[in-house]
């Protein structure tokens, strides 16, 4: 237990987490500090490219095996299944309408790639190894949750437009972050360690520093989200926002153990299950479920669950993975 607390404390005083806290505090204090939209998008492109590329290179070293295929399937299945868990919990814990609960549940079935990136950085700092290709599992978990959410919303009485038409389907499958992540993964896989050596001083050296600035912006966005949604974040929904992550993480850990993943791999699968989408899913929901309160879902994902995972969740899931896999 001491080890765990130490880990958490160590995690807390890393520059990255403190940058997030700074951003959060600045936004709550209504400072005009802001990261221009274009700069924030550029930082995100950098992180997606770097993490995808490194994952692809790692796959060259590990080889494409049965385990990767199984992990991809397990990830997709988890993403598909978790919205049902989240929906049931939301209906029990909050007074959200079925349609709103379905929308929120979709966010929690999908994943947050920044949480994943932060987790890989924490694991590296702790010296815990993980399967480099886990980033491909992250990509596989982005979309299935949307299908479940729309199904739940329809069953819950949503009318009209909330069909997943072919066009929306394409938009979701080809959304920028999936395409870049998968594309960079493929490029890393094709060019291998030689390719990595060529651009290492771009994707490795400044990586953590870029993450700091990005988390500063995430803190600002989360803080503004909190202020905008103050009226809507009821006790029940906030409680859901901190209870759902460990529940999801438990599913992820179980699947990780069943798949025989390393300690770090199981921890990352837990992080993916515990995290909530704030890019792909909200956009899809605005189109398909315009009557749902996506503002609330976004505020929960960004301003409650994201910081919870960043500060408490990641070290917690890592410790649990260690206990479980005996690593």
């Amino acid at each position, binding site marked *: 237990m001491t080890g765990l607390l130490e880990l958490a404390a160590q995690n807390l005083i890393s520059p990255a987490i403190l940058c997030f806290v700074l951003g959060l505090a600045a936004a709550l204090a209504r400072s005009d500090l*802001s*990261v*221009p*939209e274009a700069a*924030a998008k550029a930082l995100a492109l950098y992180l997606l490219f770097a993490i995808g590329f490194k994952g692809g290179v790692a796959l060259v070293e590990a080889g494409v095996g049965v385990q990767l295929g199984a992990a991809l399937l397990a990830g997709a299945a988890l993403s598909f299944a978790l919205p049902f868990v989240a929906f049931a919990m939301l209906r029990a814990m909050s007074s959200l309408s079925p349609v709103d609960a379905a929308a929120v549940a979709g966010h929690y079935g999908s994943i947050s790639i920044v949480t994943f990136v932060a987790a890989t950085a924490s694991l590296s700092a702790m010296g815990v190894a993980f399967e480099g290709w886990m980033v491909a599992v992250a990509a596989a978990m982005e979309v299935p949750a949307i299908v479940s959410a729309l199904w739940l919303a329809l069953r819950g009485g949503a009318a*009209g*437009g909330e069909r997943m038409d072919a066009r929306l389907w394409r938009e979701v499958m080809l959304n920028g972050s999936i395409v870049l992540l998968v594309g960079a993964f493929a490029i890393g896989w094709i060019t291998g360690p030689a390719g990595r050596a060529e651009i290492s001083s771009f994707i490795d050296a400044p990586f953590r520093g870029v993450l700091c600035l990005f988390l500063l912006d*995430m803190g*600002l*966005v989360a803080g*503004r*989200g909190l202020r*905008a949604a103050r009226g809507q974040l009821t006790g029940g929904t906030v409680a859901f926002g901190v209870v759902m992550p460990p529940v999801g993480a438990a599913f992820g850990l179980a699947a990780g153990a069943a798949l025989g993943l390393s300690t770090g791999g199981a921890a990352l699968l837990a992080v993916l299950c515990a995290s909530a989408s*704030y*890019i*792909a899913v*909200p*956009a899809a*929901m*605005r*189109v398909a479920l*315009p*009557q749902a309160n*996506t*503002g609330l879902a*976004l505020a929960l994902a*960004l301003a409650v669950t994201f910081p919870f995972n960043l500060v408490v969740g990641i070290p917690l899931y890592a410790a649990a993975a260690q206990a479980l896999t005996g690593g």
Partner: protein
Amino acid sequence: MQTHVAKRVEIIIEAVMERRLTEALTAAGVTGYTVLPVQGGSGRSGEWSREGQVGRAGGMVAVICLIRPERLDGLLEAAFRVVERHIGVVSVTDCAILRAERF
């Protein structure tokens, strides 16, 4: 200078719906439109600003359409079908245009 009577339609709509709207306009026979970026706003669904956005889910755009008056109804019906269930506003102003042969 010689000007011609026309209508200026301004549709403020969620960015995720932009393509669906412009395609509906084109299908309704509109020959041109211009899209302006929107920096922030407020309405029944609350306040938002571009700086606080991640992804495109929350942003909005303003689509401006100059058309001959006789096309107005077709345009509004097409636009309405897209914005109907979504947040956003539609306004129409009388205006005069140069070079009417372009519309």
